[in-house]
């Protein structure tokens, strides 16, 4: 046991002294989350829009102030005439226009039904889709409020210039994705490289000649990265909760337990790679090509798996990140408990066990 602690102390010294790598390891998840987060969410906050109010009555004023009150939109100007919309878009500062027809108020009062036109700048189709979704929901909320004190329901019908894109619905999906990516990178690559480095420098021989158990060498190599990764999970969650206002709907404890399982999967993978390779470059290449690429491609975080050819869908099943991604999404966004994710957990545990057995079998205690 004392030997093990001595070994751990040394491993931590390796990790903590490599300041540049450490900076990357801790900085990367924060930067990635912020980049993904703001690229996908900040544009939607405080988007500048124009309103063309041809009605200029009480009803249109109410809806306009409601739009203004939402944190998604900021009304740049209120135009009297629809002709000027074109100019506003061309200046580029405005992403969307909302047009009230001149009979908006009377229609709503007498027919209980009125129309609003929403025109979005579709040069960036993703943003445009998101914006129209938000606007529709603001209008729907307003409609619900009006209906609260009325027997015959009011209907304000938004007319969109764009088709609804269901893929854009979950803009927060990137957090689980980044989590999988970061853990993969830290655990697989760093572990593999740190073990192979000892092979390369020749210190591994010294360790194998010593009475220290080779299996313990592997375990103590993995421990610092396990701790590092758990810290990364905490950072990612803190950043997404407090900076991106992304709630964790499910149990935090469950999320940590599942993350630990995935981290162990990755560590086993890293050990497996290190057993199979003899140089740091090869280890790094295999980690990147063999793990990072499939993680990005097949986890479902960048490209929807349902749209892939069947062959690729089948392949995606052996990528551990896919299952972790589903698990994290279910806990964080859907707020599911363990009963909702036990299948995925079981699969992930199965993959881990398989990797563990294979690496142990391949791990030659005696260097042949």
């Amino acid at each position: 046991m004392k030997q093990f602690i001595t070994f751990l102390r040394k491993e931590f010294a390796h990790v903590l002294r490599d300041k540049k790598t450490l900076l990357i390891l801790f900085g990367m998840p924060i930067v990635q989350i912020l980049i993904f987060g703001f690229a996908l969410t900040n544009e939607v906050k405080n988007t500048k829009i124009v309103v063309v109010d041809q009605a200029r009555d009480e009803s249109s004023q109410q809806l306009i102030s409601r739009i203004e009150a939402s944190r998604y939109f900021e009304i740049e100007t209120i135009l009297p005439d629809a002709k000027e919309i074109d100019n506003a878009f061309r200046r580029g500062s405005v992403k969307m226009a909302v047009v009230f027809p001149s009979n908006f108020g009377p229609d709503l009062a007498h027919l209980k039904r009125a129309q609003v036109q929403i025109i979005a700048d579709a040069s960036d189709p993703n943003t445009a889709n998101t914006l129209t979704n938000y606007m529709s929901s603001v209008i729907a909320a307003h409609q619900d409020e009006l209906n609260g004190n009325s027997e015959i329901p009011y209907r304000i019908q938004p007319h969109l210039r764009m088709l609804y894109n269901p893929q854009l619905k979950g803009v927060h999906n990137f957090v689980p994705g980044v989590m999988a990516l970061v853990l993969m990178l830290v655990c697989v690559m760093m572990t593999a490289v740190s073990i192979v480095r000892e092979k390369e420098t020749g210190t591994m021989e010294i360790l194998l000649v010593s009475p220290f158990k080779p299996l313990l060498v592997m375990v103590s190599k993995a421990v610092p990265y396990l701790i590092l990764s758990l810290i990364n999970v905490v950072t990612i969650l803190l950043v997404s909760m407090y900076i991106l206002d992304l709630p964790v709907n499910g149990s935090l404890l469950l999320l940590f337990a599942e993350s630990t399982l995935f981290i162990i999967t990755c560590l086993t993978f890293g050990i497996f790679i290190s057993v199979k390779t003899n140089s740091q470059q090869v280890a790094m290449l295999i980690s990147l090509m063999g793990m990072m690429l499939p993680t990005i491609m097949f986890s479902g975080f960048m490209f929807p798996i349902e749209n892939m050819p069947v062959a690729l869908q089948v392949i995606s099943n052996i990528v551990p990140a896919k299952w972790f991604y589903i698990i994290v999404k279910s806990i964080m966004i859907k707020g599911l408990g363990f009963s909702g994710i036990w299948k995925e957990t079981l699969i992930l545990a199965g993959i881990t066990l398989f990797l563990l057995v294979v690496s142990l079998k391949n791990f030659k205690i005696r260097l042949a």
Partner: protein
Amino acid sequence: MNTVIQTDKLTKRFGDFIATNEITLEVYKGEIFGFLGANGAGKTTAMRMLCGLSKPSSGKATIAGFDVYRETEKIKKNIGYMSQKFSLYDDLTVLENISFFGGIYGLSDRQLKEKSETLIGRLGLRQEANKLVASLPLGWKQKLSFSVALLHYPKIVFLDEPTGGVDPLTRRQFWDLIYEAAAGGVTIFVTTHYMDEAEYCNRISIMVDGKVEALDSPANLKKTFQVNTMDEVFYQLARGAKRGE
């Protein structure tokens, strides 16, 4: 005399290739034994079997009285090892390296403290004790790794080309350390390509194509081959080698 290494027809095959072929030799306590041979002659393979890193295909061997097939763990506790590759951690300090290697051999804190104190004093590294090993010149690193290999009082120390790339003066100093250790009763098993170093050994063996072709003291070998230097002994034997590198 006290035998610490004893091998009988020790053989290692990799498929059809016989890396070491029926090696039989004895090494005695406190002896400096030179293990010579051209590149590819099978020295490293033989040494790995003796260290318990590689299982022999056939033959017998005992190291410090322990069997290489069954008692590798006990062998490991009783030997020290220093490879041709530099074998300390560059990103740890001198003291940390000492306590790490001492630690994995199970030395107590008190033993470690005493050991590192005397070691640093003897090597003249007091000022560098808390510096990273990466900042030391190669010669010092080699001396330090040799001392580290001796930390746990091993009965035998295996040195695999320990002085590669070191200047002649440092090599000389390194051999002083070897003599000192041997005088203290530690058996030194050393491979080298420097024939002047071969002369420092009590006895040497020369391997050619996996077999031990000569085994005697340097003086006797020169007499047998009727030449004046170890260089010539080596040439005569190694010239017949069929294996290249």
